[in-house]
């Protein structure tokens, strides 16, 4: 719950998870569009992040950090946009900064200089005594509610409708978390690679816009 809470002081509020560029480009204009966007995001990059969180959690849980560089490299390979790679690492540093203050643990030191956010999420879950599937779940919910919360600032919405979408998506996220956890024990190269190329392209365009509410 702590990890998945958008109010965790780790800087997530400055990001819209790709919603702002999608709204700006006219790809998301109404509530059904928002729901499709969130589902699409959860099933692609959301699943990747959840699987990496689960994999990092499984490894940190047994105190084995030898795979971390491979996990980092594999996640880089699944994130074609340099901008999104940078954001993931910035958010990872922030999450580690927040959690190592909230719940100090030597295992946070095993993460390199600028670890990807899902990998920090996985290690943090292990530190907090959670299982890989719970790490995946935290990753999916945190990412989904963050993007949904941004909708209130980007679109003319009724916040109740946004939360209705989140409520409808819970069983879908459960399934995705189970899928992520099932893949977690395998080698890093076999983790899901369900990319969403449009979100990578959009993130690059977004960086170059002069006026934006969210950093991504």
């Amino acid at each position, binding site marked *: 719950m702590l990890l998945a809470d958008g*109010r965790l*002081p*780790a*800087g997530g*509020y*400055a*990001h*819209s998870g790709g919603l702002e560029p999608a709204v700006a480009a006219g790809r998301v204009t109404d509530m059904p569009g928002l729901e499709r966007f969130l589902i699409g995001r959860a099933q692609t990059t959301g699943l990747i992040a959840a699987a990496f969180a689960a994999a990092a959690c499984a490894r940190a849980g047994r105190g084995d950090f030898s795979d971390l560089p491979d996990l980092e490299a594999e996640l880089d390979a699944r994130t074609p946009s340099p901008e999104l790679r940078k954001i993931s690492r910035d958010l990872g*540093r*922030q999450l*580690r*900064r*927040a959690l*190592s203050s909230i719940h100090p643990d030597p295992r*946070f*030191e095993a*993460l*390199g*200089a*600028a670890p990807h956010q899902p990998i920090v999420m996985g290690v943090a879950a292990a530190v907090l005594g959670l299982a890989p599937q719970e790490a995946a779940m935290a990753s999916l919910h945190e990412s989904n509610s963050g993007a949904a919360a941004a909708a209130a*600032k980007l679109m003319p919405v009724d916040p109740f409708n946004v939360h209705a979408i989140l409520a409808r998506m819970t069983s879908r996220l459960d399934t995705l978390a189970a899928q992520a956890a099932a893949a977690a024990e395998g080698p890093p190269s076999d983790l899901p690679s369900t990319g969403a190329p449009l979100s990578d392209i959009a993130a690059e365009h977004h960086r170059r816009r*002069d*006026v*934006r*509410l*969210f*950093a991504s």
Partner: protein
Amino acid sequence: MHDDHTTAPKTRALRLGVAGPVGTGKSSVIATICRHLRDEFALGVITNDIYTDEDARFLKSAGVLPEERIRAVETGSCPHTAIRDDVTMNLMAVEDLERDFAPLDIVLVESGGDNLTATFSPALVDAQLFVLDVAGGGDVARKGGPGISGADLLVINKIDLGPHVDVDVDRMVADAQKARDGRPVLPLSRKQADTVEKLCDWVREMHKTYAGGDHVPVDPGPMAPHHHAHDDGHTHRHD
């Protein structure tokens, strides 16, 4: 990139926050401080912007410090969150700057322009200035709020504009003093050298107190106390 990114910087600067509503001259106050004190102190600046990195660009183009010592943090549409509820982004930017240019004497953190209730958390800065301007209206100081009443220094900026906007500067300063319970108020115009010197003196004095280990950060508090004053009138000091 090294693993020392996981640790606190070895030298810690005085972290000085500059808050205040949009358009009151926060960037200009920072530019003034940099211009006059850059030969005395090793300085760094973090700017916060809602949209893009406009303020950092302004300060860089003003040439008040080497460009690499001015860094922008994009706060999304929540400038107050970045200085109060979730300071992680700013804290890391400050720590990175202190590490990259060690030893720094003072890091100035400019808040994104917000409203009268936005103040810095003591977790982010050691002391803070709150900036108002006469053009924003002579009654603003009287309205109070945590920044106006509790910041370490209240700056009333652009006093040279008073006659043009029908604001009685002396009256506004007196209102502010009344709201601040003895804490300092500084009427400022960058066109009046004596007021700029007073600003610099305040920064020098704050740095001296901080470097001597005598400074204890004071939280102005998140709520406006002056229209709902508690009996002791010290609501800004709660922990």
